[in-house]
């Protein structure tokens, strides 16, 4: 193992920071929901890597350093949860009910689409836990015959998509309630959706953080049943 940080790693971190600051400045200036920091920031980094013919392996050590902060950063979610503790208690049933329904719909609709589309069975299983955070998804996919690393890729794709179109979809449905918006973003797009919810406001962030935890646990519990259901449904063709 290398005991030093190479120049390319430092450059990759600085480049990612630069992309983040540029996209964030754009977002703060225009506040448009499609100006998604994660999607646009990552797109900028990918374009530079591909443009200069730099393989992902060069970026990977930098990615490892930066993503090691996700753990402590998500632990910090306990703070908004604590500030909204009375809301959690008062609406415990509403929270449980909607997150349960959402976790089921997320798994079932995705699995059904994947099956109808004729994807191989292991890909169908890998895509089903796409709405929960990576450690949950890897466990679930591995347990029922999916491919863990592919499951992780679907989790990231869903997180990026959810933070990109989540707020906009909820606007179209006229869901303005910060409580419901936060729950929806956290249930569908785990920590990435929670990060997007935090940009909207603290209540959204607190609810998304709670939904992220609940959705992970509920999805793991529902998985054997929903996987069975999706694989056994008679599909035409």
């Amino acid at each position, binding site marked *: 193992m290398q005991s030093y940080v190479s120049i390319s790693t430092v450059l990759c971190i600085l480049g*990612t920071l630069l*992309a983040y600051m540029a996209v964030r400045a754009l977002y703060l200036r225009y506040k448009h929901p499609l100006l998604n*920091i*994660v*999607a646009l920031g990552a797109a900028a*980094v990918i374009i530079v890597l591909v443009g200069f013919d730099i393989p992902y392996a060069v970026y990977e050590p*930098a*990615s490892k350093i*930066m993503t090691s902060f996700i*753990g*402590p*950063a*998500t*632990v910090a*979610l*306990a*703070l*908004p*949860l604590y*500030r909204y503790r009375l809301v959690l208690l008062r*609406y415990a*049933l*509403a929270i449980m*009910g909607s997150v349960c*329904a959402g976790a089921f*719909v*997320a798994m079932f*609709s995705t699995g059904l*689409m994947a099956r109808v*589309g*004729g*994807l191989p069975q292991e*890909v169908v299983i890998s895509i089903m836990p796409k709405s929960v955070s990576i*450690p949950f998804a890897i466990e679930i996919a591995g347990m029922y015959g999916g491919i863990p690393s*592919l499951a992780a*890729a*679907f989790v*990231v*794709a*869903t*997180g*990026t*998509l*959810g933070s990109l179109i989540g707020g906009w979809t*909820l606007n179209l449905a006229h869901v303005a*309630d910060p*409580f419901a918006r936060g*729950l*929806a973003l956290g*249930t*569908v797009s785990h*920590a*990435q959706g*929670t*990060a997007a919810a935090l940009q909207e406001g603290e209540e959204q962030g607190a609810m998304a953080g709670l939904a*992220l*935890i609940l959705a*992970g*646990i509920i999805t*793991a519990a529902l998985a054997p049943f929903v996987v069975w259901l999706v694989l056994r449904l008679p599909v035409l063709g």
Partner: protein
Amino acid sequence: MKEAWKFLWQMAILAGLFWGSDWVVRATGLPMPGNVLGIVVLFLLLLTGIVKEDHISTAANFLLKHMVFFFVPVAVGLMQWGGVFYDYGWILLVAIVVGAVLPLLTVGLLGRALRCRARRREGESCNPM
């Protein structure tokens, strides 16, 4: 200077909580990610008053404000899977988009309706918007 030390000290507390929880999950095989246990533990510490809000709030607020940054490199990792996304292209896209939009609407609409119902039961008025 004092502020900087306070910030670093608070970061160390959060990182320590995460590493401790992550270690417990690995050691015991608890079926949950380390960061989820970390949230639950810190939440309980705050509730019991063992950790006070201002013991961690400077670092926590900073991390929460910039949490999206840490997901930029995660999304960059998607470039490795270009092949799979190319092979199954639009089916995957449809499955992921439908599988995101439907539950978003489910949770958004149901969450709003159930919260309203709870409010009305306690005699408050609620405009379901």
